[in-house]
């Protein structure tokens, strides 16, 4: 083939590829709305705030963005909204060692951001992020304590290096709080002990379960 021939192959072949991409795009867009919940006005306003505060400059969403902070796609499935709201408004009050700065987000803005994040959590992402295949032990908290694992305490707390960082590390919590009554009160209503606590209350648990938890917490020395 001469140079003209290769050139034409390049020009027309590339154009053809582009046309195929456009066709796939049209097809994709015809399916997107059925793969995600409806976008309410609140979700849209939340997305605009996501851009306003440049959350993508630290976080990923759908796995794309910056790798300085956790992925936000399914965050509303991981921690309760009451906690999220407190954290967004003032991360450093919830967790003094938080790396996320206080951005000046208002209560109202936090609600909208949460509505937006709730929306992304329901998008069909072909199964991403995947469940940890090796991790049933670690993701449950690795403690072997049924009540602790069932209530997902480890999504916020670390024991012996395993767990989330939303709440304080409780590896040695029994040294700080040796009194079972303290724990009972705290579980029923954390805010009655730590003003404005971001931990959700667990008053709804059965007495049995509470006792099990408290006995376990008191072993953490």
């Amino acid at each position, binding site marked *: 083939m001469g*140079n003209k021939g*290769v*050139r034409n192959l*390049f020009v027309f*072949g*590339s154009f053809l*590829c*582009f046309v*195929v991409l456009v066709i*796939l*795009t049209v*097809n*994709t867009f015809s*399916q*997107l709305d059925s*793969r*995600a919940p409806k*976008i309410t006005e609140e*979700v*849209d306003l939340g997305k605009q705030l*996501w*851009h306003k*505060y*440049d959350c*993508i*400059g*630290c976080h*990923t*969403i*759908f796995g*794309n*963005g*910056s*790798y*300085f*902070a*956790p*992925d936000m796609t399914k965050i509303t499935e991981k921690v309760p909204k009451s906690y999220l709201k407190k954290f967004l408004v003032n991360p450093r009050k919830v967790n003094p060692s938080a790396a996320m*700065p206080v951005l*000046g987000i208002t209560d109202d803005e936090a609600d909208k951001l949460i509505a*937006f994040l709730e*929306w*992304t959590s329901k*998008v*069909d*992402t*072909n*199964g*991403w992020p*995947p469940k*940890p295949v*090796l*991790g049933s032990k*670690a*993701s449950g908290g690795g403690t072997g304590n049924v009540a602790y694992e069932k209530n997902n305490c480890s999504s916020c707390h*670390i024991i012996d*290096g395993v*767990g*989330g*960082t939303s709440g304080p590390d409780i590896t040695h919590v029994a040294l700080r709080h040796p009194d079972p009554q303290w724990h009972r009160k705290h579980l029923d209503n954390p805010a009655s002990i730590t003003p404005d606590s971001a931990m959700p209350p667990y008053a709804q648990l059965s007495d049995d379960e509470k006792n099990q938890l408290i006995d376990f917490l008191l072993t953490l020395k």
Partner: protein
Amino acid sequence: MKYKSHKIAMNFFTFAVLLFLVQVIIGLVAAVQFIKPDFFFFAFNISRTLHINALVVWLLCGLMGATYYVVPEESGRELWSIPLAQFQFWATVVTVLVVVVGYIIMGLFPQANITVFGTLLLNEGREYIEAPRWADIMIAVSAILFLINNAMTMFKSKKITGIMGTLLGGMLFLTLMYLPGMFYTSSMVKDQYWWWWVVHLWVEGAWEVIAGALLAFMLMKLTNAPRQMLEKWMYIEVALVLFTGMLGIGHHYYWIGTPNYWLWVGGIFSSLEPIPLLVMVWDALRVTKDTRSTTNKLGLFLATAHAIFNFLGAGLWGVIHTLPSVNKWTHGTQITTAHGHLAFYGAYVLLIIAMVYITVPEMRGVKEYRMSRGYRSFWWQTVSMIMIVFIITGAGMVQTYMERLLGLDYVTVKNNFNTWFWIWRAVFGVTYIIGVCMFVYDFFKIGKEPVTATLSESKA
């Protein structure tokens, strides 16, 4: 200077080189923030934005400078309008500086990023295309003026070479692919869909086409291989780039809420993307071996290094995580950062540096120049970059294993297990910056110092 138009090329190169220094210094700030988040006067998101925007802008300015060099030379005449090109240069500089000031203001007062006429004033909050809408429009206008000027030059000369045509075709595609990033959609899925058109179709489409054209140009200048043959291989390379890369965009549509046939489209086409990059390496090595004819050894060395690192960074470090079965676990981890660094370094940073060492001596009117500092700068940069990439690949492997496979918390892994990787990255960030300082200094000195370097010294 043979052409007055080459003054414009020098302007763009100068601005690019200075921004390069800013980019890596702010990259070091971002790296330290991984260890101490609050140590600087603005937060990580702002330093990262500055780092990657400075990167994209200086590379674009470098590519524009290269084009303003190539087009007069290939067409054998001055630019259609030199004053227009001057205006385009200064408009670009002013826009970029205003945008930077805006980012810094936002770093100090996050609330300052208000909505004006329905768009954000300082920062659009979308990675890589953070520049606000008004700046997007300025940039698009600048790119259009640039295209008109060069296209008019080419048509007036009635001598449309393959290299020049492909170069300007790539530039046109680049400009068009900026547009999908310029509108708002209320769906985050659609937002990311169009966003990838900009990002992917730039680096794995338009820019790679431009790189193919410039590689052919550099080889033509430095060897006596016939144009006919160089252009033929150039066409083959850029055709393969677009045949694989256009649909290779599917590797970004696995997990963002798009239908699952993209797993097949993306997996198949993106796995083929390294092929054209490998052809470029072969092309560069074969041509330099067979028909070497230049005294500009450094230029030839850098052009070849660009081809090799383009393949390693984009091709190899890209293909390892491009299959859906792998990407499912590595998506959005530090593996991506490692790939991003080596790909940009090999494909575009080294391309601009090579073009600088090939064209600047000619523009300054010297046949020979002192090369030792250029070699030394290359090695400082390259060794540091390889170390950074290995370190961050290590961090990514630990992250993938601990977070994605074992289910440990993101922050736990980042703060407890990866700390040493962050520290070592910062250390090699410093040595990288030393290499860049040498390059910037050398840029201003090329052709102005006595040529004392002997062969043995130039190897050092």
